[in-house]
Every structure is written in C-alpha cells, then in structure tokens.
C-alpha cells in the first residue's frame, strides 16, 4: 500500500492501526473458548463393543435363543469363553466384584475376585481357543458399571477384540 504524503515536505500523517477493537474481540473469543473448555473431555476414550444378541436377551438363556428372531449377524462367531462376574450383596461392598468365573467348554473355573488374575487366566486360556477374538461378559444385575468396565478392560488387554455382553444370569433365574 503506497503511502502518499499530503504535502511535499510537510508533516507526515500518522498511520495508526486501530487494534483496540480487534483486541476486544479477541478477548471475547478467548473467554468464550475458556468457558467451553473442559479438560476432562480430553481424557475420554472409547471402547467399541459387539452388540448384545437381542434374541438371547429375550430368551434370557443362551440355549433358548431363537435363531429365527435374531438379526443378521447375531449368532455368527459365538464366543467360546464367557466371563461370569458375581457381585456382593451386603453392606458397603454392595455392587463390588464378589467372584469371577470363567466358563469354557470344559466347565467353569473360579478366578477369585481380582480382575488382574482374570487377565492372567484369560491370556493363558486364549491360546487354546479356536476363536481367539470373541468373548462374552455376563455380570450380575447389581454389579457396578465401573467393575463391568474393568472386566471388559482386562478382556481387551488379554487380546480379545470383540467383547460382547450377555444378560445378567441372576435375572434369568427368577
């Protein structure tokens, strides 16, 4: 932008950039974004999951599942291994993990109440499986979601890619 002088040899006009309104606007924007900033959201992560089988959910027991009512893709790749998580029903520990059982084709194996043990057990058990990607978790109805996520976390870290959920076994009995 050429700067022209009003009068040759006269006083140079000042070229003032008026940046105060721009600064005002910038501060307004800054405040808007600070208010909308929630650092906790940056720590949020996602867990993908396989949808629960609707036919199984209705039948309450896997054996009673009706293949006709199933949506396409429902009964493919059935998990060979199921983690059953039982909960405590007393006092302060209500909703905590009571004990964990792993159900395989040979039968049930107790793993105790520690999710870390579950991971070790699953890592070993996974080697002998034909289907090494799918696993099902069935937890008691009153188990807290935090522990469900912990168990799911352990299954994922043991190498199973698709974790699906089954209906709570204690509801099925009623």
């Amino acid at each position, binding site marked *: 932008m050429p700067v022209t002088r009003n009068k040759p040899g006269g*006083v140079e006009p*000042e070229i003032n950039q008026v*940046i*105060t309104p*721009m*600064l005002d606007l*910038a*501060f307004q*924007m*800054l405040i808007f*974004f*600070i208010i*909308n*900033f*929630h650092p*906790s*959201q*940056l*720590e*949020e*992560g*996602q*867990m*993908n*999951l396989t*949808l*629960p089988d*609707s036919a199984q*959910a209705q039948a309450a027991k896997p054996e009673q599942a009706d293949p006709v009512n199933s*949506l396409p893709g429902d009964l493919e790749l059935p998990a060979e291994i199921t983690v059953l998580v039982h909960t405590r029903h007393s006092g302060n520990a209500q*909703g905590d993990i009571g004990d964990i059982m792993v159900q395989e084709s040979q039968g049930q194996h107790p793993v105790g109440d520690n999710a870390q043990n579950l991971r070790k057990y699953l890592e070993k058990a996974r080697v002998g499986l034909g289907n090494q990607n799918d696993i099902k978790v069935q*937890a*008691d*109805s*009153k*188990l*807290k*979601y*935090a522990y*469900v*996520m*912990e168990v*799911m*976390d352990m299954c*994922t*870290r043991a190498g199973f890619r698709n974790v699906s*959920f089954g*209906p*709570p076994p204690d*509801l099925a009995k009623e």
Partner: protein
Amino acid sequence: MSHALGEETKAEPNLVPLLDLVFQLIMFFMITMNFVSAQLSEDIKLPIAQSARAMDRAEAEVLVLNMEASGKLQVVGQPRPLATLGDKRFYLRQYYLDAKRTAEEQGDRHGRVKTTVIIRADRNANYEDVFELMALCKEVGFRKLQLRAYTQMGG
C-alpha cells in the same frame, strides 16, 4: 500526540505481542474444543479403562446417551431424564425413525441409519441398567454402539 513541540515522547503500549499471544491461546482452545460437548453431561463420572482408545472424531452422526448412577437417561432435548424403560424405548424409536427418514431423504433407498450410539454410563450405575439400554438400542435398530471411559485416573 502532536509532534509540533518536538519534546513529547510517545507512550503507546506495544499491543502486537499481546495480540499474538491472545491469538495463540484462541487457536489452542478452538482446536481442543469439542462441538459435540453440548451432548456430554459433566455430572457423569465415567469408569476407567486403560485400553480405551482415543476418540474417533470422524463420526458424523452420533447420539449421546448419558446414564446417571440411578439408571436415568439424560439426553439432549429432554427437559427431564428418562426414567422408565417405556420412555427410553419411545425416545430411541423416535430418534431412529427420524434418522431413517433423513437417510431416505438424502437418497439412501434403504434408509440405513449410520448413527453411532455413545453410551456414557456413570461408574456407579448397575450392569442391569446398562445392559438393558444396550439391548434396547439393538432392538430399536441401531447397529453401532460405543462405550465411553476415562483413559486414566485423572478423570
């Protein structure tokens, strides 16, 4: 501000570095801002899972379901949380049908719904309620489901 006397020195603050800094800050907050955050409820304390992956922001259509510890469902556009199974089913079905209609209008003849349902359940919620919700999503017809968790203890 006249130079006529030639004696006065100008005392104008140099605002340019300040402005630079402010713009840097604005850029930072803009980039980290999540526009879906309107749907995320801040009073839900998510569980922790170390294997949770970083969020995939490419998902265009999402429905966020915030589940309180009591099992009630907070959703956008509803003044009160949905408490009963009937309310939840009604809401999800309406949402699904709307999404299906939109897909059909956009030229997809089969009206395939691409919406991803994101479940943000409180760590103290019961498995029963979470399972019920997942089964409901499937029953209504949603195909993509996602759970949310904090990746570290900081949450």
